Structure formats: structure tokens, C-alpha cells
């Protein structure tokens, strides 16, 4: 544990990083969109399909039992990652988006009435806005929004006024994908609990940067996607307190989610299977677990220090010349820097960075209300991971200098 954080050694585990793009060594700064995968995750997928591919939960044969136990072991791995009470509280989904839709469509449809209020924030990803708008339209509930300030921080005094007796759900993004802000979810959860409202935390951008403890947070639901935490796409997690999961109706009907079926009466299974109809993403769960094991093998104090160093270095370099405007300067941020090159459209800057082998995200980052708030068409977002280096930030700055020459 006391070993120095060796980023070059870690990079050896990520095959994709060792390639040229447009004649330059790849610099991958789009980790907020999806993380790259270590060799161990890629191998877990291959070894599942070449060694023990079978359908789970039903078969008595050996392969099915091996696949079932690997799948259920993945649930244990997630339970430990989030520090949930039991693996029954871990539901496998397609991703963060499905997790939010699941709660909106089951809990929301069952419990919401006209005049009830759902509270989100001005800093949400579309995935934590649209599912609530849809259920509001259906039930007559209303969507309320906690505002943010110019630094990209939520205004808690306003939250205090908005979260009230009509609030049924407070749904908040843990870490902003567009700005990197770490939101004070503990305070918001406490406010929600005071008025008896449910809480859902969108952890898509959080789990790959710091330890999340759902017991300590005491939220009702927590959702994330495997692919942002070294795992595969099409796989995600919905954590829910067991007492909640027992009460809310199932999501989709089909195999695996039932205990018995007849034409007169069907009895549903217990959670988590109650929410997992049909053959699930078996290799997704197994390889997600491998990604979590890889993550657990790292020293998280060192990871946090390394990522904060990258954030600070990139911020300093961008601020040094006065050519850039950083969007989102919250006190508590993960290693994400959203910015604009003065006088240039982010779309054009993204093009020129790509020509230099540098992958960043440009645009509104599925968070149009944030761009409307800052009155900008979008940003250039560099989102770092523990496998990135200061030398890569230098390369980005060199490419930005070319962009400035060509555009500004």
C-alpha cells in the first residue's frame, strides 16, 4: 500500500491507450463519457464466453451453475463496493438511465399524485430530468429545480425553500458530468428526510472517483453505470433499501422475475430478481465485477491525490494565459475541467484536438439546462482518470495553442 502511485505501470493494463490516433499517441480525456477497460475486464468477457457461457438461475448443469455463481458473485462485489446491507439490495440494470427510469416508472407511477413534487437540480444530466418529466406528465406531479450559482454550485438556501411538505422525491446527480461539481448530497438527503421524501442519487460520475457508502449516505436509491467504472457498456446498478424494493411494484414482466405463473394469478419473485425480467446481461455483470476488483486493487488515497493533481495542473495551465474560460469552479470537484477557448466554438476546438490524437468531449454534455444557464453553446470537457498524466495535459495545451492560432 505504501508503494508510490506508478501511473506508467497502471497504463500497461489498458491496451487501448497504446495506439496512435491521426499520427499522434492517443490522449484519452473523455473518461466522463466512458472509461477505458483494463486487460482483466476484457479477459473476463472472453473467458466467460470461451469457458462457461450458459443461461443462469435455472439450469442444473455445471456450466449454468458456474455462470450463475459468477453472476451472483458480481452482486456481492457491488454490494461491497457501495457498502449496502445485503446483495438483495443490488438490482442489475442496463445503466444509470435505466435505473432512474425504473424508479420513475414503478415507484413514481404507483405513489405519485397530482400536486406532488419531484425535486431535481439545475446541474442534472438529461437522464435525471426527462424520466421525471415523463412521470410528472402522467401523474400530474410537478418538477421543481434547485438552482446553482456561477461557480456551478447548488444554492442550499434555495434547496431549503424548495424541499417542502409536497416533496415526494429528491433526485440529485452526485457529481456533475458537465462541470465536475461534487454536490452536497448528504445535506440534500437530510432535507428530504426531514419532510419524509424519498431520495435518489445519480452516481454515474461519482463511483470512478471516490468511495461511495450508501449506508452512510442513507439515500433510498443510488444508481450508476458499469462502463464509467472500468466495466462494460449496457450494464448498470440500482441500489435500493430492501424495504423500498419490497413495496414498489415490478418494472417489466417476464422470466426470472416471477415465483409462479398461472393464467389466474402470478406471484412475483423477491428483490432483486423481481426487477430483473428475462435473461440478463450475464457477461456484463461478470466483467463489471472484474472492473470493480481492479478498482479495489488501487490505493484510493493515491488515486484521489493523483487525479486532484491533474485537475489542479490543467486548471493552472488553462488559467495561465487568459485565452480560456473555465466553466464550473466549484470548491469540491472531481478531475473534470470544462472550458472554452475565447473566440472559438467548442465544436471547432474539438476537431483540432482530435487531429492531434486528443479525445475530449465537446457540446452540451447531455445537460442543456447548464449551457442555457451559462449562455454558452457548449464546452470542451477534459475528464481525467487515474491513468492520465501531466505530460498528456501538456500535449492538450500544445494542441490548444494550434487551435488558438487557427481559430481565435
Amino acid at each position, binding site marked *: 500500500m505504501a508503494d508510490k502511485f506508478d501511473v506508467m505501470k497502471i497504463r500497461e493494463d489498458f491496451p487501448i491507450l497504446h495506439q496512435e490516433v491521426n499520427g499522434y499517441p492517443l490522449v484519452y480525456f473523455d473518461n466522463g463519457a466512458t472509461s477505458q477497460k483494463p486487460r482483466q475486464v476484457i479477459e473476463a468477457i472472453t473467458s466467460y464466453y470461451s469457458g462457461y457461457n450458459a443461461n443462469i438461475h435455472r439450469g442444473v448443469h455445471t456450466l449454468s451453475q458456474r455462470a450463475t455463481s459468477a453472476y451472483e458473485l458480481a452482486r456481492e462485489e457491488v454490494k461491497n463496493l457501495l457498502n449496502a446491507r445485503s446483495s438483495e439490495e443490488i438490482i442489475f440494470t442496463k445503466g444509470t438511465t435505466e435505473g432512474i427510469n425504473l424508479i420513475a416508472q414503478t415507484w413514481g407511477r404507483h405513489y405519485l399524485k397530482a400536486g406532488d413534487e419531484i425535486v431535481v437540480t439545475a446541474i442534472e444530466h438529461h437522464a435525471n430530468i426527462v424520466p421525471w418529466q415523463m412521470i410528472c406528465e402522467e401523474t400530474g406531479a410537478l418538477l421543481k429545480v434547485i438552482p446553482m450559482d456561477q461557480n456551478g454550485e447548488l444554492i442550499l438556501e434555495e434547496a431549503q425553500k424548495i424541499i417542502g411538505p409536497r416533496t415526494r422525491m429528491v433526485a440529485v446527480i452526485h457529481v456533475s458530468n458537465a462541470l465536475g461539481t461534487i454536490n452536497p448530497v448528504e445535506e440534500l438527503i437530510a432535507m428530504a428526510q426531514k419532510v419524509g421524501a424519498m431520495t435518489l442519487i445519480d452516481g454515474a460520475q461519482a463511483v470512478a472517483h471516490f468511495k461511495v457508502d450508501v449506508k452512510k449516505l442513507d439515500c433510498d436509491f443510488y444508481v450508476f453505470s458499469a462502463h464509467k467504472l472500468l466495466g462494460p457498456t449496457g450494464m448498470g446498478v440500482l441500489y435500493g433499501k430492501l424495504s423500498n424494493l419490497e413495496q414498489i411494484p415490478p418494472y417489466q414482466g417476464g422470466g426470472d422475475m416471477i415465483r409462479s405463473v398461472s393464467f389466474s394469478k402470478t406471484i412475483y419473485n423477491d428483490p432483486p430478481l423481481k426487477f430483473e425480467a428475462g435473461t440478463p446481461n450475464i457477461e456484463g455483470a461478470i466483467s463489471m465485477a472484474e472492473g470493480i476488483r481492479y478498482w479495489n486493487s488501487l490505493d484510493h488515497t493515491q488515486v484521489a491525490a493523483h487525479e486532484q493533481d491533474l485537475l489542479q495542473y490543467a486548471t493552472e495551465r488553462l488559467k495561465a494565459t487568459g485565452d480560456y474560460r473555465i466553466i464550473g469552479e466549484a470548491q469540491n470537484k472531481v478531475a473534470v475541467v470544462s472550458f472554452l477557448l475565447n473566440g*472559438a*466554438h467548442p*465544436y*471547432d476546438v474539438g*476537431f483540432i484536438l*482530435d*487531429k492531434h490524437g486528443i479525445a475530449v468531449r465537446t*457540446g452540451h454534455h447531455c445537460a442543456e439546462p447548464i449551457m442555457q444557464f451559462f449562455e454558452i*453553446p457548449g464546452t470542451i470537457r477534459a475528464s481525467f482518470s487515474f491513468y492520465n498524466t501531466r505530460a498528456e495535459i501538456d500535449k492538450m495545451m500544445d494542441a490548444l495553442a494550434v487551435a488558438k492560432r*487557427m481559430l481565435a
Partner: protein
Amino acid sequence: MSIAVKEAEIIEEFEMLDNWQDRFQIVIDTGETLPLMPEERRVDQNIIHGCQNRVYLSSDLDGEVLHFYGHSEAQIPRGLLTLLIRLVDGEKPEDIVQASLDVFEKAGIKDNLSMQRAVGLESMIKRVKLEAAKYVKN
């Protein structure tokens, strides 16, 4: 000047340049020459769908020929749009409909675009042809 002649001119201009940076510098600089599209033309119905950023195009018939107006906030799409408008502005609708408008391939510009951006460019070309087709009698 016919579309073919203007196309040959553009290709000649780009052929001399052997790297993407010089080519796109020309694209960007060309975009600066696009006359400002009047605000009232920048309406939803003139947005070209398929582009990542907002690109507008509209046209007017002036006697026998068409005049085009375009706008984009981003410089590279604006440059591409300007080159496209240079080709077709002042031409007859039936000539525009029949033109191949593949100057971007021939000038070595399209190769340098990512898939998504190439789709955006295709959408611009398609829109120009649709504008012209409105005035062609079958």
C-alpha cells in the same frame, strides 16, 4: 461561371496544400467571407438537421437563378457551407439538382472529417439540393 468551373477552382486551391492544417485554415478563412445571414432567416425551418452544431440555410429565386444564405456559429462548418454556397450561388435550380457536388472528396477535405462531421457535411449538400428541387418543374 458554371458549377464545374467553380469546382475546378476550389480543387486547385486545395490541391497545393499537403496537410490538413493548411486545408482547414483555408476552410476557416473562407468562412469569414460568408455574408451575414439576416436574423429573420435564422428560424427553425431553415436549420439543417444532422449537423452537430446549429447550421442554417435558405434560398431565394432571382429570375432564373438561386441565391443562398447560410449561417453557422462554428467556424469549420461555416467554412464548408461557404464553399458549398460559392459553388451553387447564382446557378439555375436544375443545374444544382444535377450537379454531383462532390468537391469536398476531390479537394481532400472530406477525408479529414470524422464520421459524424462527414454526416453533417452530407446533410448540407442534401439540403442545398432540396432547396433547388423546390423550383424544378417535373
